[in-house]
């Protein structure tokens, strides 16, 4: 990542990349279910169609916060890709999600509220693991900067395999994939926090999800150090793992999710941290 232009281009293209990942994901998921699935560009067709809908909002603050959720998430991603401080990145990401939660709480919609509560619980489930990963990286590289991880000669994966495993276990929560998709849970909550957004204002929340894909895969890439091949290998592996998991599991309740995450994923990352601190 010595060349400054690569991250900048990545940042600018992030929503597009995320959209492509999403489109590809829908195809892969369909193939796993022996369907053909939509065309690769389907997310973008949806995007164009949404822009044409009648503009309706619950109230202005709600709609505005939705847009700002997208903007602040993009900013968090930019700081990560530019090799910024990981703790700052995690906090910014948390705060951008918090803006969405804030938006959902600001309406008097039952489903929005339930969704916001569940999103908050999801944050409680994955945030500690991310923080431990950041601290472990600090213990190994002596710096919180993501650059240190990107430039590491030896891939971090070899030093913190358990932390990577923990990351794999929390990523479905973050990306709202089964079995941990309680925050979205279309059958129960009809989308949760997203429900009250529509038309062009939904666009922001919709594309923010694409940004989240890029964000998560960038986190995965962190583990590869300066080994680009390994990085892409990890990303592709994670991609298939996530979709296979999504297709083959049923949703668990939010309590089960929280318990699993705080006992299994958290402990894995924590043991890894202890090992990193001792050596």
């Amino acid at each position, binding site marked *: 990542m010595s060349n400054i232009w690569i991250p900048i281009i990545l940042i600018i293209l992030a929503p597009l990349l995320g959209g492509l990942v999403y489109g590809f994901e829908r195809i892969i998921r369909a193939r796993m279910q022996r369907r053909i699935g939509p065309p690769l560009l389907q997310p973008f067709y949806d995007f164009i169609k949404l822009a044409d809908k*009648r*503009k*309706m*909002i*619950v*109230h*202005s*603050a709600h*709609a*505005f*916060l939705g847009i*700002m959720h997208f*903007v*602040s998430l993009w*900013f968090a991603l930019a*700081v990560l890709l530019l090799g*910024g*401080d990981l*703790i*700052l990145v*995690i*906090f*910014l990401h*948390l*705060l951008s999600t*918090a*803006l969405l*939660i*804030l938006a959902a*709480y*600001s*309406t*008097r*919609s*039952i*489903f*929005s*509220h339930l969704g*916001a*509560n569940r999103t*908050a*619980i999801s*944050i*409680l489930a994955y*945030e*500690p693991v991310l*923080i*431990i990963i*950041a*601290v472990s990286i*600090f*213990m190994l590289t002596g710096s*919180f900067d993501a650059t240190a991880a990107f430039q590491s000669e030896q891939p971090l994966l070899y030093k913190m395999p358990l932390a990577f495993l923990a990351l794999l276990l929390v990523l479905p929560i973050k990306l709202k994939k089964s079995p941990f998709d309680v925050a979205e849970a279309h059958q129960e909550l*009809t989308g949760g926090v997203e429900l*009250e957004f529509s038309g062009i204002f939904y666009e922001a929340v919709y594309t923010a999800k694409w940004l989240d894909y890029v964000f998560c895969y960038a986190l995965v890439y962190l583990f590869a150090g300066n080994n680009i091949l390994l990085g892409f290998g990890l990303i592709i592996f994670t991609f298939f793992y996530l979709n296979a998991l999504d297709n083959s599991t049923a949703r668990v309740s939010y309590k089960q999710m929280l318990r699993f995450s705080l006992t299994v994923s958290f402990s894995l990352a*924590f043991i890894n*941290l202890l090992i*990193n*601190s*001792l050596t």
Partner: protein
Amino acid sequence: MYSLIALLFVVPVFISVLLLVVPKTLAKPLVITTALLLSAISVYLFINSEGVYYFGVPAYVNDMAAVADIILLIFFSWIAIKRKSWIVGLMSLLQLGGLLYLLNTMPAHYSLQFMVDKLSLFMFLLINIISSIIAVYSLRYIDEENCSQFRKKYFLSTIFWFIAVMNLVVSSNNLEYFFLFFELTTLASFLLIGFRKDEVSIKNSLTALWMNQIGGLAILAAIFFIDFNGLGEATFSNLLSNETTSGILLPLALLSVAALIKGAQMPFSKWLLCAMVAPTPVSALLHSSTMVKIAPFIILRLSPALKDTPVSNVIIALTGFVFIAAAIGALSQDNFKRILAHSTIALLALMIMMAAVGTPVTVVASLILVLFHGISKSMLFLNAGILEKVFHLKQSSDMDRLGETGPFTSLVITIGFMSLLLPPFGAFIGKWMSIESLGALATDKKILGALIMVAVAGGGAVLSLLYFKVMGLLIARTGEQDKIHFERTGPFYAVTTYILIGLLMATVISLPFLLNQYFAPVAGSVTGTTLVIVTEGWNMFIGTIKLPLVPMLIAFLLLPVTIITAMFIRFKNVDRAKEYMCGEKVNYSFSSFYFSTDRATPYFATAGILFFVALIMVALI
């Protein structure tokens, strides 16, 4: 200079007595003038001071202080008999016995009982300005309290009494004086917490009394061990100059225990949580500028001696634990003031931790947290009082209409929460510096450092969720109420709120300047080393810590500004829609949902006790 410092002690005492005798109508001009005077003196002193001011008092004052001590302890014993509280009685008797023993055996030839250094001046600033604002606010608040005219004057009088003893606490050098003033703050808080004189108030004020008396007892024990171990005079300056002498750890540990109790760290957090029954200005006073701030003050004062000792390691571990435990405890709270109280405990833990680490950078972090927490919390509590008196709201779950009925108050509370949470406000910078500087700690104490970093970052994440939940309620509204009309709350409420917001904004904007000109010298005086702060390109370097200015600035635009804008912005030419209810008609109580953490919290107190035992054990070994 000396006379100005003396004024800070004398004026509040004088006004406190005067308030009791003058008619109620004179109270307003009197309080406002004194507030201005005290603030002006403290600012002047802070800007113009040079070096350390030591001063002594004649021998007969020592005798008077001893008599005052005894009278105070007899008063506590009398309360114990009157309220039939055996634990208060036990504590008072133990203290009385200890004090009499010390008075008989200790050589009483101290020359310099008071020491005012940069740290004291810094505390003066916090104590006098914030408490004065609270006193002015109380003028209005107390009028709405259901009690006699004399009780109202008595309330205001006690506030000034509190300011006076706080000023004295932070200037004491001699530990016997320190003990006296420490106990006097306990007395002031006891009187204020029990102000409403109902059953709960009295019970809770007694809890606060006996818990803080343990702190007093710890100070007495510290004095005893200083003498017993032959360390010379029982003064702070002497303790700091003897930092490598063996046998010093025990007095240090005991003083730290006193600090941790004042700072409401677990398992002694109960007294602060119980203090909520008092009129709201009391909570504001206890949480922001007085009482609990003694805790970081003591640890900051002792930090050069504490640094890198086993005692400081235990304090760091304890506060790291308290930080995350208080954050988890806060999640299950619904009462607005209790949410604030838990966040105070958490942030205090952070301040104490940073002071105990004791490097220049962490001391700066601690100072930033002390000051900003003071401003933010007083603002939040004063507005909690407005919520109670004007809107009749106490539970946060009832606040979901506040965005419509009281948009201004809800805006102020939102700003208050953001100032505790988001960049670039001081509390965020403080938290940030904590995490980054713990990294430096982690190089030689790796496991402790790593654990504490996880605790701080995790606790921070938990607290931010809670704040956002409350903020979500505050900006809630429906499509029909899309316009904002600010309510009026009356001049005293409005003016104090404006001043606090002004202070908050001014300190945030001038933070880079303040860091260099004011925080760094104070930290330098505390640690005895100089701290270099330079700005290079996009980054500000505070010692070894890198503070990325540009991301901070953008984060400021994206987060606090966004949330404030969200309250005002109006989209034109967009249709309003009703919320989707899935075709059902149900009465759903919003915000009835909270996170139940009750199963975990009982263990926290036990863990806290273990930490305290460990604290004394490591000092003994």
